[in-house]
């Protein structure tokens, strides 16, 4: 098995029964449950927004990309680094016969895998919760547009790569829950404000996720071409983060 393969398997063992894993599972469950309750009790008032399955998916993916996914990425990256700090793990991990950057890459890969797990859960929960919402006739749910759901899920998955890359680096460099949360929320809000102003926004960690805000404007399509810029930015962040991690060879002072 390759070095990265072994390290990624080791990461998977570390994530068992861990806070990052719990965060990754709870985030989509909490969002879906909260919005489903909101939908259910909104009754006739929501009809002004042309409800139905499409609106249900749009609302969830907009909330996910603009708020929950940045927050989840921030929290699970921070909790994962915190787990290493609490275990004083670097005194053990860095004396293994493995290149230092491989530890960082495995960590980033583990964070991305957790974010993907969150999104798979969201993808499964949305049609299920939607099926329950169909029991409320005021919501005019109609048939689920599954192709649309898959498009949103794919776009969201692409958007999560840059977020995982950014927060993996940030939490390694600047530990702290509040630092991570503040960066996630402020970054998402600022990027949303800039989203329509410049195509350069795609290179920001929140750039692709912020584009999900446009899905309510149904004459617009998702800017898939921005994914290349976002993935390139994510790649650059991973390379810089790995170099930064390897350069800091000293673990104690």
């Amino acid at each position, binding site marked *: 098995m390759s070095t990265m393969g072994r390290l990624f398997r080791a990461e998977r*063992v*570390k994530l068992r029964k861990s806070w990052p894993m719990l965060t990754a599972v709870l985030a989509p469950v909490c969002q879906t449950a909260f919005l489903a309750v909101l939908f259910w009790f909104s009754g006739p008032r929501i009809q002004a927004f042309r409800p139905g399955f499409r609106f249900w998916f749009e609302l969830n993916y907009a909330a996910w990309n603009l708020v929950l996914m940045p927050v989840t990425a921030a929290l699970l990256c921070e909790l994962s680094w915190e787990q290493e700090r*609490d*275990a004083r793990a*670097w005194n*053990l*991990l860095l*004396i293994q016969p493995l290149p230092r950057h491989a530890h960082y890459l495995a960590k980033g890969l583990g964070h991305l895998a957790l974010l993907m797990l969150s999104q798979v859960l969201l993808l499964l929960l949305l049609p299920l919760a939607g099926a329950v919402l169909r029991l409320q006739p005021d919501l005019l749910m109609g048939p689920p547009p599954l192709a649309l759901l898959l498009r949103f899920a794919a776009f969201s998955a692409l958007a999560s790569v840059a977020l995982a890359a950014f927060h993996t680096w940030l939490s390694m460099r600047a530990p702290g829950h509040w630092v991570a949360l503040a960066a996630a929320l402020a970054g998402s809000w600022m990027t949303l404000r800039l989203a329509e102003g410049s195509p350069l926004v795609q290179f920001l960690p929140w750039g692709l996720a912020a584009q999900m805000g446009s899905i309510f404007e149904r004459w617009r399509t998702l800017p898939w071409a921005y994914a290349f810029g976002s993935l390139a930015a994510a790649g650059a962040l991973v390379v810089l983060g790995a170099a930064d991690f390897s350069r800091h*060879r000293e673990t104690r002072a």
Partner: protein
Amino acid sequence: MDFVIATQGLTRRFGARTVVDGLDLRVPAQSITGFLGPNGAGKTTTISLLLGLLKAHAGTCEVLGHPPGHPAALAQTGAMVEAPSLYDHLTGRENLEITRLMRGAARPEVDRVLGLVDLARDARRPVREYSLGMRQRLGVALALMGQPRLLILDEPTNGLDPAGILDMRELIRRLPGETGASVFLSSHLLAEVEQVAGNLVVIHRGRLRYQGPTEGLGAPGQGGLVLRVADPGKALEALLPLGFPAREEDGRLWLEAAPGAAPRVAACLVEAGCALYELAPQRVNLETRFLDLLEQR
């Protein structure tokens, strides 16, 4: 002699403070070497330098013939630095599994090291439920993963109760025989190390104070001669021409003379008609000698 660790002029500073100061270490293979020094002497920093966790500011260092932190050296070295690095939410077995995967060791290796440290029965319990002694033993098990040739243990008995210290001592004593590994054991307690280590390295304020066999620390030749005579006053007078500083204490005479001077001393006393019952090299207590070393400037 084959050395597993060899350093020359190893130096490390933190700001203006020199924590390891020109250290020349020679740690022989296939033995237990105690690495002694009071708290803050520079032991953990030295170990971190040996493992490549810290970078030396001067001097050279070789671990198993490689520079510190070299993958070839790390592949054959197991270490526990400061406290054991453990994930509390995982079981003992899962903690070992992480290290096994990273070292690319075979699956049965987990059971082997669990057996060595006598933790097989508790392997499926979360580490947060472990006692301090069990955590330390698990830390040693992590260091033993992959059958290393060199084992570096930094204060493995820290915080243990007397029974835990005894268990750990027995475990360390067994290791070279059962695993073939050389052990470099750091501690600030002489009593703990002298019972298991064949060799000692003593450092204080980052400087080497002693290096050699454990018994050599309090060896004859470093103390003097002790005499039991019928009449100490007469004996003191008789020994005056030899010029050795002498004093009477507890009915004995203490002579500041090398063991090689014993025949001359005996002849002098016999010639003066002093009844001599005992003449022996003074064996300095290890603890006293250790403390003396620490007080040297």
